[in-house]
């Protein structure tokens, strides 16, 4: 995945999941200073929270759309003779 510049476009859901993986790897890496590891963990929890929130929002949206679809009366817009 190409590295995104900080402050550019927001990450997509998939990018966020990928970032979570990356963060876990860096925290595990003993070369990473502890302060950085804790900061990364803080970031990771924030990203996971965002992911959960967007998933819940999507779920709500599906529920609303499903309700709309159930109420939809399907009549093609052909020209009536």
């Amino acid at each position, binding site marked *: 995945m190409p590295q995104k510049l900080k402050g550019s476009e927001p990450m997509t*859901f998939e990018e966020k999941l990928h970032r979570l993986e990356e963060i*876990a790897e860096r925290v*595990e890496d003993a070369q990473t200073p502890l302060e950085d590891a804790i900061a990364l963990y803080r970031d990771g929890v924030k990203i*996971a929270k965002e992911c959960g929130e967007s998933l819940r929002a999507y779920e709500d949206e599906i529920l609303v759309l499903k309700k709309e*679809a159930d109420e939809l009366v399907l009549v093609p817009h052909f020209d009536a003779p």
Partner: protein
Amino acid sequence: MKTVFSVTQVNKYVKKMMDNDALLAGLFIEGEISNFNAHSSGHFYFTLKDAGAAISAVMFASHTENINFLPKNGLKVVVFGRISMYEKTGQYQLYAEFMEPAGIGGLQLAFAQLKEKLEAEGLFDHERKREIPRFAKTIAVITSPTGAAVQDIIRIIRERNRCVKIIVAPTIVQGEHAAPDIVRAIGEVNEHGEADVIILGRGGGSVEDLWAFNEESVARAIAASRIPVISAVGHETDYTIADFTADLRAPTPTAAAQIAAFDQNAASAHLRDLQSDLTHELTRKLRINFDDTRFLLQNLTRATNERLANEWKTLSHREALLEKISPNAVFKRGFALVRGNEIDAPITSVKSLANGQTIKITFADGTVSAKIERGAEPCHKSSKEANP
């Protein structure tokens, strides 16, 4: 002198007379079949009669295979053959070579011949059939505007679909002007271009009534149509050249309407099913993403905890090391810290001490005050200072 002939001579003579007659050598006779007998040898024996007369007839097996109907008593037929005599009995009879039912027979022959011709040209080939659209927006109906068929077709289309557009192209559907009129209508509907499918047909009738749909010009117009054509001529048992040429043959006009117009309710229900499937699929995908996120977060937390545990381990290890070099450890080995009474800085040299001066000495377990009794005597044990 009277000449006396034998029976054989007479029959031979009469037979010769008959065989030399130009008319009797080949003629068409119309009559009704009676006493029909299909002999096991394959020959047909029968009597051809009309209101006032009868003639014996035979059709040999070599000719019977050329007729495409089953002769039976009471059937009016036209027979082609020659008249000759059977010498043994002196009976003259019709030696039939071909026969067809009277009236429609000629049409049937024309039908068979045209069918064979167009089939050989490939006009009926499956590969050239166009697909009937599943969701036609406009249906053209080419038929008589006054017949029952057009009413049936419109009623069935409307029952199934309230929105599809119907264009009726009125035509004559029987008589000698029917074929050119049908050809014109097919051309016009194509020129107009809006229809997605054409229903071409008429209600039931006699073979003669349906005849226009057996004309070559109509067949060619169907084949040339850019818009797919559903044929619907007469009843289920009627087959016309138009049926063979059309992209689809519907058994009846109402069946054609059912094929051409999609069922709006069924389509809606199907769409609903698809939507429901879609919702289900999306929800499933979301669940998987939830699980993925949860797993990744757990993984990250575990990694962070492990990292912290490792740091604790390192820290306690370092503390143990530190313990070894701490002042307490030095005190324990018998050293003490000497400081001035007023100032806290450690006293590191005897030079700064005078007789009677008070100092503080700190041990591992506490601090005491002490007084210097003897003044400074420079230490000459230089070996200790020189090699620290």
